[in-house]
């Protein structure tokens, strides 16, 4: 068995930074010498944009992989080929809504991605699944195929509530889909955090200027600690991260000195450690 780790990036909210994490952590892993495949499961196709690629023809998308008679010919494209040869992408786009609907008809709907990856293994050290913003069939398929789940979250009440429901869904699914070994939650990544002008962010991150009282509800990091789920260092909201994405570059090559590069490195390091502890 080749050593390969697959990580699902999920959040149950839009704009939390799933594609941003997928792209930047993927690039960081490649910079460390690993080969990486990025899968864009989100019908919004943001991964395509963030990779600076044109929308692929429908027949060369992940849709092909989600067919019963997939022949193992993965629709992979090189990504940032001027900078690296170690990142490939498998793109989705709008067609993924159809793919999700068709999944329902398949015998092994939730297992199709895992099955195909088992039958036609990819040589990459890591595969990152960029999942849609709301829980659907594609999530089941990604979860079933994954070793770990990474959850970016903007610390607004609405998003935290959504992430809590995502967690519940993950634990439920591990039981109902009988996933063995079960995928583990690698951690939450507080992202787009605005401590300066958002009281909600400060409170939820446990970084309020007010004195803490007994009536205060637990912060997100407290809560995660209680559930023994790792919480990564927070990533500050920054226009530059979005700017890099819109021109289709990883932040590291667009703004090498940007503070968030450290965050992506931190996450990549944890992922590398998981890979080495697997062997």
């Amino acid at each position, binding site marked *: 068995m080749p050593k390969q780790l697959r990580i699902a990036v999920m959040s149950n909210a839009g704009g939390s930074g799933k594609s941003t994490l997928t792209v930047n952590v993927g690039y960081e892993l490649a910079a460390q010498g690993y080969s990486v495949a990025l899968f864009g499961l989100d019908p919004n196709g943001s991964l395509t944009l963030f990779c600076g690629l044109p929308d692929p023809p429908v027949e060369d998308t992940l849709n092909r992989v989600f067919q019963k008679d997939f022949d193992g010919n993965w629709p992979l494209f090189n990504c940032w080929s001027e900078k690296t040869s170690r990142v490939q992408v498998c793109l989705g786009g709008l067609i993924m809504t159809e793919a999700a609907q068709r999944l329902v008809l398949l015998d092994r709907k939730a297992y199709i991605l895992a099955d195909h990856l088992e039958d036609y293994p990819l040589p990459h050290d890591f595969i990152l699944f960029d999942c849609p913003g709301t829980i659907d069939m594609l999530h089941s398929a990604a979860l079933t195929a994954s070793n770990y789940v990474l959850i970016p979250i903007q610390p607004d009440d609405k998003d935290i509530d959504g992430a809590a*429901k995502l967690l519940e869904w993950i634990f439920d699914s591990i039981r109902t889909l009988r996933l063995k070994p079960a995928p583990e939650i690698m951690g939450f990544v507080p992202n787009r955090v605005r401590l300066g002008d958002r009281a909600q962010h400060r409170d*939820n991150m446990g970084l309020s200027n007010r004195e803490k009282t007994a009536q205060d509800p637990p912060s997100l990091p407290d809560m995660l600690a209680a559930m023994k789920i790792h919480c990564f260092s927070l990533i500050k909201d920054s226009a530059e991260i979005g700017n890099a994405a819109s021109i289709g570059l990883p932040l590291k090559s667009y703004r090498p000195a940007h503070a968030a590069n450290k965050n992506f490195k931190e996450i990549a390091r944890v992922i590398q450690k998981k890979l080495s502890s697997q062997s």
Partner: protein
Amino acid sequence: MARHSSRPVSTMFAAAQTSQLETQIVQKDEEINALKSQLVALANTPISSSVQRYLTADFIALRLPDGLTQPRKYFDRLALDKLKTSIQKVGIQEPLLVRPADDGKLEIISGERRWRSAMELGLTQLPALVKELSDEEALEIALVANLMREDLNLVEESDSIIALIALRLKISRDRLPSILFKIKNLRSRYRYTNTEILAVMTEDKAENSRILSKEAIADIDAIFAEFSMTLESFAANRLTALQKMPESLLEAVRQGKVGFSKADTIRKAGLSEQALSLLLEEAVTADLTKQEIRTKIQALKARSQLLEKAEEPEKQIRDRIHASYQRLRTNQKVWETPKLQKHLRQMEKLLQSISEAAAQLP
């Protein structure tokens, strides 16, 4: 709070926490089953050359952080000697199970007696299987391995089962007995199903609401079933006895000096502390049977009753009557309540006849 939020983070995550717990329970069940078959296989396969041997000096008893303790606390001298003889004859038949520690030592999960015997015999190497385990996993396996061997005494076994359930459900050991009693009562008194039990216990807000799910109750039952017991019998027969048993008796049982049922017989007698420790000592040194213990208790009780009678019984009854009368005298309601008139007249009559008899006394 500066900011108003109708749903605190803890509420948001409540359902996720429950689901996480249920998933952990299912996973633990599977682990335990896998582990049990591994342990059985371990016990049944004779040592082959494939099992790695390690220096006896590198082994050490399992070290756990505060709050988690080893199930076995005592090592019976006789049993150790027996094991030593067997090891001398045929060697160590079953590899130890150990985990590697940061300081290079091998912490023993299963096989501490074999290790102690081997040290006393001066063996330099021991066969062992090394497995990376967290503190909780290590304790869980140690508990299961010990329980499976069935050579723990009853107090150690009960302690272990409680520890195992507490560990799996992630609740403190102190709180578990009251939860078990509650489930047992709801079942035996009202024949409640798990769903009904859960409903009752959820209403009981302060204590148990967050802890128990239907799956958790089913899991407790499954653990008892694994060791051929039921929650009801465990609570009724053992927990009650364990909770009421004075520490001196518990210690004696833990150290294997006296059997559990003998200790329980002594406990039920309700003797004074001094009488209890004397009887316990006699039971241990003379190795009394349960019947002999019972006879001793009867004798002790008869003697103490005689003593009580001899010591101014009259004065005691006078004081008692005096005290009750003092209390009633000033309570106007007692003298006015129609229902009590009959009793009061009876009392008056009795006092009269006692006075008359007193007048006849020399």
